[in-house]
């Protein structure tokens, strides 16, 4: 999987690279409009992370360029500007997703995986790891082909963990993802804890091949047993 990161802020670019390397992606970077335009012209990428405000040009112009080549479907816009206009324009130009800075690494990871999965040719919308299958269309969860009922939030949480397999998912990232983009989400960590406790019980009793472990009280990690 080849990913292009177009981001002018050096520190942010480097952290994203460091994070994505753990997923064993092949990563290229561009820090301004011109070098990005060149790379887009020459190579094909499975996913492009695109900042809108760039030196000597706009990410939206790059998106247009991609659209003209019929390659805009795997773009995730990352912008500090949570502007509805940009969002609409970006999605109109064929971008797959729009992520507002600041974001959690786990969130970026999940979005990239979602884009990659959507653009996979087999069209299967399931995540399969060890002996478990999560069907995103039917919203069902099976362990050893046996259905394990999950409530809505448990399903979302498990999905998020599976997209971030072996990665740290902080409570904040989880709360934000499960809650949606909201502002006063304070003290819902108890709720997250409660949901995860239930989810762990269900995984254990169904004898699932994955487990969720706590990391320093900051977050959790899903690993294969």
């Amino acid at each position, binding site marked *: 999987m080849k990913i292009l990161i177009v981001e002018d802020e050096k520190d942010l670019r480097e952290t994203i690279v460091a994070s994505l390397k753990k997923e064993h992606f092949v990563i290229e970077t561009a820090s301004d409009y011109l070098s990005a335009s060149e790379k887009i012209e020459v190579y094909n990428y499975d996913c492009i992370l695109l900042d809108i405000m760039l030196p000597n040009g706009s990410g939206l112009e790059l998106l247009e360029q991609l659209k003209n080549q019929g390659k805009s479907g795997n773009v995730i816009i990352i912008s500090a500007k*949570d502007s509805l206009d940009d969002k609409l324009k970006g999605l109109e130009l064929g971008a797959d997703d729009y992520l507002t800075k*600041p974001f959690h690494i786990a969130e970026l990871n999940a979005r990239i995986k979602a884009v990659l999965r959507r653009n996979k040719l087999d069209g299967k919308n399931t995540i399969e790891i060890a002996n478990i299958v999560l069907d995103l269309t039917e919203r069902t969860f099976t362990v050893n082909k046996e259905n394990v009922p999950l409530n809505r939030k448990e399903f979302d949480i498990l999905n998020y963990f599976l997209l971030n397999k072996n990665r740290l998912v902080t409570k904040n990232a989880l709360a934000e993802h499960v809650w949606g983009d909201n502002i*006063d989400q304070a003290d819902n960590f108890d709720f997250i804890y409660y949901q995860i406790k239930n989810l762990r019980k269900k995984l254990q009793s169904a004898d699932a091949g994955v487990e969720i472990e706590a990391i*320093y009280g900051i977050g959790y990690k899903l690993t294969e047993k």
Partner: protein
Amino acid sequence: MKDWTTTSDKLFTRHKKDTSVLEKRAFDEGFFAIHEISQSQALAVKDKYLDTLMYMQDADDESPELEPVRLLTTAFENKGHYYELKIINSMVEEDDLVGELLREAIGLYLLLITVVILINNFVLQRLWQPFYSFLNQLKNYRIGSSKNFPEVSTKTKEFTDLQKAVTILLQQNIETYEQQKQFIGNASHELQTPLAITTNKLELLIEKGNLQPDQAENIAEVMSLIDRMVRLNKSLLLLTKIENKQFLDNRTISLNELVKQSVNDLEEIAEFKNVKINVFESAELTIQMDVSLANIIVSNLLRNAIFHNVSNGNVNVNILEDAIHVSNTGIESPLNAEKVFSRFYKSESDQSGTGLGLTIVKAICELYGFSISYRFENSLHWFTIRFR
């Protein structure tokens, strides 16, 4: 004198036709008396004017009154006879005059008052009309939402000077207001990238592992602080955007649907908090507004009601034809109704929120001209939005 001459002339002409005139010895009803006198007496007579008092009865007097008169004594000759002629002329009828004067004074006074009122009502009002219209415009002026400056439609220098001064003052205020708005927007905006980098670096650091528990604890604390900053920042950006009217994709929205959807989304957390949400729909409420803003209003109100609740508590949502009430159990004392919607207001018992949730709801309501209010009644905290 002319008067006198004409009166005596008239008398002379009259006595030539009517000799009885000469027989009139007393004034009686007339205004003259004639006595026959000797030639020597007549020759000694010189015309004499005299102011005196005399009993007279006018048509409008009930009894004879002492009236001041002017008396002319003179003499003339007729067919060898000499006569003395006395002519009187009432100078004034004093009491009549007093009455007359009083009446006229009152009349004049009334006229004066009428004129004063007329002047006040018409002239002055017309004169001050530009001022009052200007004052009215000023009263209705809202920085940030009014487009035109108040204007005076007159050439009166005082008023135009006033207008100039006010316009300058307003311009300065608007500039400050815009700058402040822009500053908040820019500041929060510029903070996004550094916040993103900090969060991500810390996340990577933890992922690396090999941390002592106390180090991890420190990092966790820093991360939760950063997270708070991020949320604050997002709220401020959202507020700025609302105030800049950057959302105006208005559509017809069913509030009933929106509430049901929101309740559905919040079901699990309400259950976890042991709070029951009841929705009462007594009417179908549709409004014209931006979908994402409508969502924020409903979900912020509901979250607020769920989070600031007690175990085994209730949240009631009443949907009326033109309003929505959200009431919830909670602390047993009213919140400060004036401050509950202001920025960074937090109740003493709970300091964990950003204190911007209700402020955002209020800002959205103001943007659309809805009214929002808070009251404490029957041990419930009530939040009401009136849409019309």
